[in-house]
Every structure is written in C-alpha cells, then in structure tokens.
C-alpha cells in the first residue's frame, strides 16, 4: 500500500506554532500551564511546543513525560509493556495540564492518561493537544488543539515524526 505524506516538515512546524499560539490565547498567557508528552510519540511534540511557547511568550513552561502502559484498559487482551520513562518533576495540583500526543485515534490512550494524571495530583484543568486527529473515537474524548484533522480508515497507520506526517501501511490486528 502506498505511503502518502500529508504534512511535510514545514507544515508540521507551522502547526506547532499555531497550536502554541492557541494555547497562549486560550489560557490568557502561560500562568500555571504545564505540558505533558505522552510516551512515546507525544514527547518530541511536547518539547517542540515548549520551544514555540518560549519564543512567543518568553516563558518556560514545565514539561513532563507520561507512559500510560499500567493504566491501559487492554492489559490482558494484548501485550502491554511500558516503553519509556514517566517523569513529572513538578506537582500538578492547581496547574492547567496540556496533554500532548502525536495521533488521536480511539481515545483510549488519553483515557488512560487522565487516570494516570490523578495519581500525580489534581490539575485545575486538563487540555489535549494532538498533531493528527484521525477519527474513530471509541470514547467521549475530543482534542482542544489539533494540528490536522485527517479522515482515515481504521486499518491505516498514521506516523508522525520530524520528517512530517505520513499515512499508509495497513497494520494487522488493529481492532481496538
């Protein structure tokens, strides 16, 4: 199956900049805002957003990472192992947490992340930023900031990297 590039690196950069502006606008500045990247795809995006926010507002927002493996609802249904570290070196209580992920699909990862966040404190609000919203939600979850809305078939795969966003390659067994 052919692989199609739907966003090139420049598109990606512009989308990051736009989302950063939206975060500032939506929250009337960056007071009390923190970014949490979901492992693994959301982490580089969280760092890029951090850079963009720094150049827009001249303010450093705290950045953490979260691996949600132990909170997933499909433990026991398929192999689930944590891939990377969870590192949240600040108290979330009272903060506005912007969860950052590369692709929003069924919503189950975000559901797991919301559960996990509770174990680190009680944020004042949680917002969701994703580079690609590919549809097929199985839970009532919607993003606050979207790089691109991308209608897909359930058996397609969407890859986000510094090289852009690519769609293609049927992935077997994606029945979630």
């Amino acid at each position, binding site marked *: 199956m052919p692989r199609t590039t739907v966003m090139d690196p420049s598109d990606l950069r512009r989308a990051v900049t736009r989302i950063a502006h939206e975060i500032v606008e939506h929250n009337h500045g960056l007071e009390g805002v923190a970014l949490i990247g979901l492992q693994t795809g959301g982490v580089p995006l969280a760092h890029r957003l951090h850079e963009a926010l720094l150049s827009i507002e001249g303010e450093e927002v705290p950045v953490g990472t979260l691996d949600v493996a132990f909170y997933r609802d499909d433990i*026991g249904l398929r192999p689930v192992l944590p891939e990377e*570290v969870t590192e949240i070196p600040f108290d979330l209580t009272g903060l506005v947490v912007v969860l950052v992920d590369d692709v929003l699909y069924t919503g189950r990862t975000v559901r797991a992340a919301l559960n996990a966040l509770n174990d680190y404190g009680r944020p004042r609000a949680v917002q969701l930023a994703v580079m690609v919203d590919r549809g097929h939600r199985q839970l009532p979850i919607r993003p606050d900031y979207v790089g691109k809305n991308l209608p897909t078939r359930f058996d397609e795969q969407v890859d986000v990297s510094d090289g852009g966003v690519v769609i293609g390659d049927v992935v077997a067994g994606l029945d979630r």
Partner: protein
Amino acid sequence: MKHLLSIADLGADGIEEVLRLTDKFVEVSGRSIPKVPALRGKTVVSLFYEDSTRTRLSFETAAKRLSADTMTFSVSSSSVNKGESLRDTVETIEAMGIDAVVVRHRSSGVPWRVASWVDASVINAGDGWHEHPTQALLDSYTIRSRRGRLDGLRIAIVGDVKHSRVARSDVLAFTALGAEVVLVAPPTLLPPSLEGWPVTVSHQLDGLLASVDVIYLLRLQRERMTEALIPSLREYRAMYGLTAARVGCLRPDTLVMHPGPMNRGVEIDAEAAEDRRSVITAQVANGVAVRMAVLYLLLGSGVDLVGAAEPVGAVAVAAS
C-alpha cells in the same frame, strides 16, 4: 511465560527484561500515590509453609500497588493443622478463583508440584535449599542500580552456602549477567558437590576482601542444621563474619549485602550492616519493585519473556 520457578527459566535476556521493567516500578513506588491499576481484578495468594517477614510482605505490597487483591494463607492458623494435604489445600484455594500463587515451602521442588496442579501462575518464593528467584532478581537489580552493571564484577558469596536457596539463585543470576562469583565458606557449609557450578571456591575470607566488588553475606541457617557443621558461632564469626575490622579492608565502592534476616554478631556485625557500603535496606526497598515487575510480567503484560527483548506491543501502543 506463566510461572517463575527458577532463575534458569528466565535466562540472561529474561533477567534483563525484569530489571528493565523494575525501573518503571521504582518510579511508581516513588510517587505520592504509589499505585497503578494494572492488575485490577486479579487475585494473588501467598501460600507460606515457612516463616517469612520480608518476602511475604514484599509480595503483598507489590500486588496491592498493582491493584490486585491479595489473600494470605498461613499454615499456623489453617486446616493444615487438621491434616489437610498440600494438594488439597492448593486445590481448595484455586477453587476460589485466583490468578497467582506465591509459594514458600521447606521442601525443594514444591512450587513445581503446585504448578502441575493449578491453572494459576506460580511464583517460587523459596523452596527448601533450592531456589529463591525473586531474591536473586532484587539482588541483581540492587547491584546494577549501584554499580551500573554486573558484567565483569567480582562477587563473593560468604557463609552457609549449603543450606542457602538464595546462594543458588544468586549464582545463576549473577553469572548469567556476566559477574564472577567466589563462594567463601568452610567445607562443611558447602554443598557436597559443586560440579557444574560456574564459581570458584575459597575457604579464606581475609585474602579476598580487597578484590571484591560485592560481598554477600548469607544467614547461618541454624534451623536447617541437623549436625554440628561449625565448631562454634564465635569461631565462625572469627573466620567468616564481616566484622568491623574486615569492613575496613573493603574498597570504598564495594557493596555489602545480606538477604535478611541478619544474625548480627554472627555472619555480620552491626557496624558492618550500618556501614555506608551496606545496601541491605536498599535490597528490601527494591524487592517490592522487582516483585511488581514479576507479577506484572506474569499476570498483566501478555508478554512471553522468552524473546521479550522485542516488546510485541510497542508498535501498536505508539500508533494509538
């Protein structure tokens, strides 16, 4: 992988995988709410036919931090006192619907028998003189977290090797990870044959002190001794005890370890146990995280440890 009966079941790759996962659970244990929902709805039974403080509490804490339910079976207050056999006891417990049994028994091989009777996962928490795999995993983890690796380290295991299941599992784990192991004991406290053990033997502790990276003291298991194997406790301490004077001969970066419970003033002096080189309390703390990793791998991960170096779920998780 369904059961953890022997360190040999894991192999070097499996041990590495457990240690890698343990890092994640150390992070979980450091949180203000050190609990994850990974094993909700699972039931873990501890079936202890021998006394234990740290192993049983460590397993139960680990299970609770994974949100599993725990049941404790202690022989002293059970129908074993009415003559119920091991098999009947195990089958009764399994009929209540359980997912894992943590077994300790004074006879070697019992966990294998239990595993042949039940559908649940069986974890060996010590069988007679034979094996204690989770202890070896937490010891390996403790050494790795302090020294970065085990490969190339020289580890002395000192004392009552003959009766020690810890020593057997540790030898398997440490050598699998590339360490060199020296057993230090009087001939009466060594197994009758060491054929096939990947170790060297010394009957002399003093000459080794300056050359080892880890000194691992074993508990003198007087409850298992049926004959006079040592002349006296005082003479044992004089020859093999880690006294304050001997601690002074160790290098500054040598680790002092003991599986507990300690016979202070016999195999280890109080000064040695409290020396800054001692990682004995770190062993206990790491024990919980290691057991969380083992329980998660057996009950939750869906990963077959053999060949686990490539996590099957990685791609799918990243894509969702």
